[in-house]
């Protein structure tokens, strides 16, 4: 038995890293940066898919385009692949303008959401397709295919027919088929969305590992903010064809720039600021709170996991008196809906064996000034 036929990710790590290092030396080219300037795209007369996108993606970055369906993320990816033409704007990869280059002449490969494996070809011929179209001689092609099959641990799948594969196997073949071409940039269009949760998180880890080892620039499209945060070096959040925010996962999650980004990242605790005082003092729907470094925005974000619940009434600075409205016990933590003078506030409390307040109980909510963020509409 070859190592690759055993279960992935557990016992095979050591021998696996050994041959991975060989690949690193022999076949990895310099990763490429990407520059998008003023991209516009419209479908029909009314639907605006992209409304002026400027973006620079660094070489070797795992970059994620995140947003709800119809936000333009897939259109942006398709423009990068050359499958869609922008109405305006330029597109550069590695400093070279490729706006007018047809897809089959771009050193960019895509992992499609449906995997798009050719049904008339075996797995091996699917993997070799890109190399064959570029006219690589058979022997080198076979060597490359064998190399990538080992790298992605495909094992004996190579001999199979495409219709004999399960979803997770197809996903890996699709990834290998794109990687074997050694593109400047790899595009991934929601590649994990068709898989069930367990397989999905396993492949997330695998995908990350592949990207780090090859040092290739990956552009990843997803609508799942959890997935985006796990995978990415940087995230761009899109809505209605406009980039709302670009930054590392922590920035986007902890310091969203506007209400859309905050809500999309899963935050519900947004409160209107009614007045501002000295030293970061803010009057809000919740009451008076101090924010360490308030910005100009008119909304205050209170993240549920930054809140502490103290028993009884213990007033003070950055403390609010509340009544427990609802409690969802989740084992590792509990989620609370608190009622503060008619305004509702969500809190997440880690279960460390302390007293978990009951519904109807009076509690005091404490929050640190540095955890409060102001943001725009």
């Amino acid at each position: 038995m070859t190592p690759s036929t055993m279960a992935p990710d557990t016992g095979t790590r050591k021998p696996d890293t050994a041959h991975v290092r060989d690949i690193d030396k022999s076949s990895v080219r310099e990763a490429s940066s990407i520059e998008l300037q003023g991209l516009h795209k419209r479908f029909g007369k009314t639907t605006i898919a992209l409304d002026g996108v400027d973006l620079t993606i660094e070489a070797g970055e795992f970059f994620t385009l995140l947003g709800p369906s119809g936000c333009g993320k897939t259109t942006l990816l398709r423009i990068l692949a050359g499958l869609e033409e922008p109405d305006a704007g330029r597109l550069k990869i590695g400093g070279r303008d490729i706006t007018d280059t047809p897809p089959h002449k771009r050193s960019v490969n895509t992992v499609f959401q449906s995997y798009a494996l050719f049904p008339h070809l075996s797995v091996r011929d699917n993997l070799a397709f890109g190399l064959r179209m570029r006219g690589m001689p058979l022997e080198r092609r076979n060597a490359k295919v064998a190399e990538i099959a080992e790298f992605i641990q495909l094992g004996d799948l190579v001999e199979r027919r495409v219709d004999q594969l399960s979803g997770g196997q197809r996903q890996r073949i699709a990834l290998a088929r794109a990687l074997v071409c050694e593109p400047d940039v790899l595009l991934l269009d929601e590649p994990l969305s068709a898989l069930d949760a367990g397989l999905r998180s396993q492949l997330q880890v695998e995908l990350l590992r592949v990207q780090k080892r090859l040092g290739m620039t990956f552009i990843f499209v997803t609508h799942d903010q959890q997935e985006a945060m796990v995978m990415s070096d940087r995230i761009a959040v899109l809505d209605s064809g406009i980039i709302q925010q670009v930054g590392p996962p922590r920035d986007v999650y902890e310091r969203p720039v506007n209400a859309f980004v905050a809500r999309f990242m899963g935050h519900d605790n947004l409160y209107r600021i009614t007045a501002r005082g000295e030293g970061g003092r803010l009057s809000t729907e919740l009451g008076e709170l101090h924010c360490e470094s308030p910005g100009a925005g008119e909304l205050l974000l209170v993240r549920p996991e930054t809140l502490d619940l103290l028993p009884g009434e213990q007033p003070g600075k950055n403390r609010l008196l509340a009544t427990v409205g609802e409690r969802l016990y989740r084992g590792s933590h509990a989620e609370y809906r608190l009622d503060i003078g008619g305004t509702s506030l969500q809190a997440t409390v880690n279960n460390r064996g302390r007293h978990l307040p009951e519904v109807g109980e009076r509690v005091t909510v404490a929050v640190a000034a540095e955890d409060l963020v102001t943001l725009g509409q």
Partner: protein
Amino acid sequence: MRKRNLQRGLSAFWWLTLAFLYLPLVVVVVFSFNATNSAAHFTGVSLRWYRRLLGNEEILSAFANSMILAITSSVIALVIGCLIGYGMYRHRHRKLGWLIVLIYLPIVLPDIVFGISEMTFFVQIHRLTGLLQPGLETMIIAHVTFQIPFVALIVYSRFVGLDPSLFEAAKDLYASPWQRALHFMLPTIKPALISAFFLSFTLSIDDFVISFFTAGPESATLPIYIWGAIRKGVSPEINAIATLMIGAVAIAAVLSLLFSYRRPTRSTANHRRGTEESEP
């Protein structure tokens, strides 16, 4: 009890239908081996009529015409129909329902109307230009005309059944337009092309009405020959030709079915096996 009776009734109905369809064919086949000239009494088995058939110059030439006509027209229809089918697929988002109706029309039009219009058309062309003298040439054109819609629809439905991102994957994997046609599209629709060819072939061999109106004096096909011969009375020789044609058409129809169904059935079987293997 009642349910059983219903079952029996339905089953009897099914066999009755089959009998209506196939008994006449069986009679023709049986009488083609008849030892005497009688169409009423079967007097013994002989290959006499088949031997007579092989000696009949007229029949052999009619057979050759039928084959040339069927093969040539099917090949031409395959090329044109394939291009039309692909075109229909490529531009399927452009509200081309009317085009599909347009291409269906010849299929639903009565053969006799179609045949007469073809004839009138060819006569006019001949009168004006001297080209297209009635004969094999005009018959081929006429046959291609009614075969095209079938080919186009078979090819179109095969393309529609494909994952559209396959076309993009081919582009993405460095295939130029010609390479896409050669290495992706043609191999992918091959089963559809083969089944379309056999269907066209069967339609052409089958056709009498349209051939009759577009044929010339030298280009009688088997059905036309039979039509002429039958006016002098049904001879066992005709039964022999009919038997051979039943055989030929049956083979072509079976091949056509085989090729159109082979891929899906095999892949579902394999898929079932594949999932068992891959998920132990």
